[in-house]
């Protein structure tokens, strides 16, 4: 299937890009924040990921949203004095790869910058177009 340009305006496309990259930054920063937070049960259901419908260009209403990852892996450590330790003294943490999350954070930040840059270019173009005939 050949992917073609959408009928959306450039502003809408850029707005979607900004929203998507911001959601990725939020998810990555949240995941880094909870990397060392002990889980009340063995289920790491609080880890987030960004979900987007790939056909957004045809339907802007298919928005970006954050969702939890099901069956996310956990790691455990022996801390018998921890309030959340189980009967055998083990405390569970989400198995978050901070390097991956940092890479996501940086790439999303760069893509957000690029979107802003293109938005500024479009803004300048529009301003110039309004000057025609003056």
């Amino acid at each position: 299937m050949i992917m073609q340009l959408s009928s959306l305006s450039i502003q809408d496309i850029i707005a979607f890009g900004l929203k998507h990259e911001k959601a990725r930054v939020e998810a990555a920063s949240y995941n880094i924040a909870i990397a060392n937070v002990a889980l009340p049960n063995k289920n790491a259901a609080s880890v987030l990921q960004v979900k987007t419908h790939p056909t957004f260009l045809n339907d802007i209403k298919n928005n970006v949203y954050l969702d939890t990852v099901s069956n996310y892996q956990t790691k455990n450590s022996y801390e018998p004095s921890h309030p959340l330790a189980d009967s055998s003294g083990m405390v569970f943490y989400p198995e978050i790869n901070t390097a991956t999350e940092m890479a996501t954070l940086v790439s999303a930040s760069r893509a957000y910058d690029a979107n802003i840059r293109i938005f500024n270019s479009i803004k300048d173009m529009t301003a110039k177009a309004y000057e025609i005939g003056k």
Partner: protein
Amino acid sequence: MNDISSISHALVNAMNIQDMRIKVAATNVTNINLSGTKGLFFNYKQLMKDVSLHNLVYNQIDINKYQSNIPKSSIKLDEQTFEAVTASGRYQGVAEMLNRSYGLMQLAIQGRE
């Protein structure tokens, strides 16, 4: 292309092409971190060539003919940003030329030297 209306026509065509160029760059930048999407390539040079050779009107051209999918791995963020900024600069330059062309028309109408 020997009268002022043809010049305006050519300039408007050029503005539309630069506008399409920036739209493709914006789509590529938006899709860059989105799974399940492909990169887009817009052969604007071929389009400009066809427009100038056959004296085409932009609105009557099948733009899809000049677009193709490319692997997402060949889409680079800096290249796409450069593409967008270049297209923006050219668009503004062409708009300025159009503006001056209308300024000349205005002078001709008013009969000033």
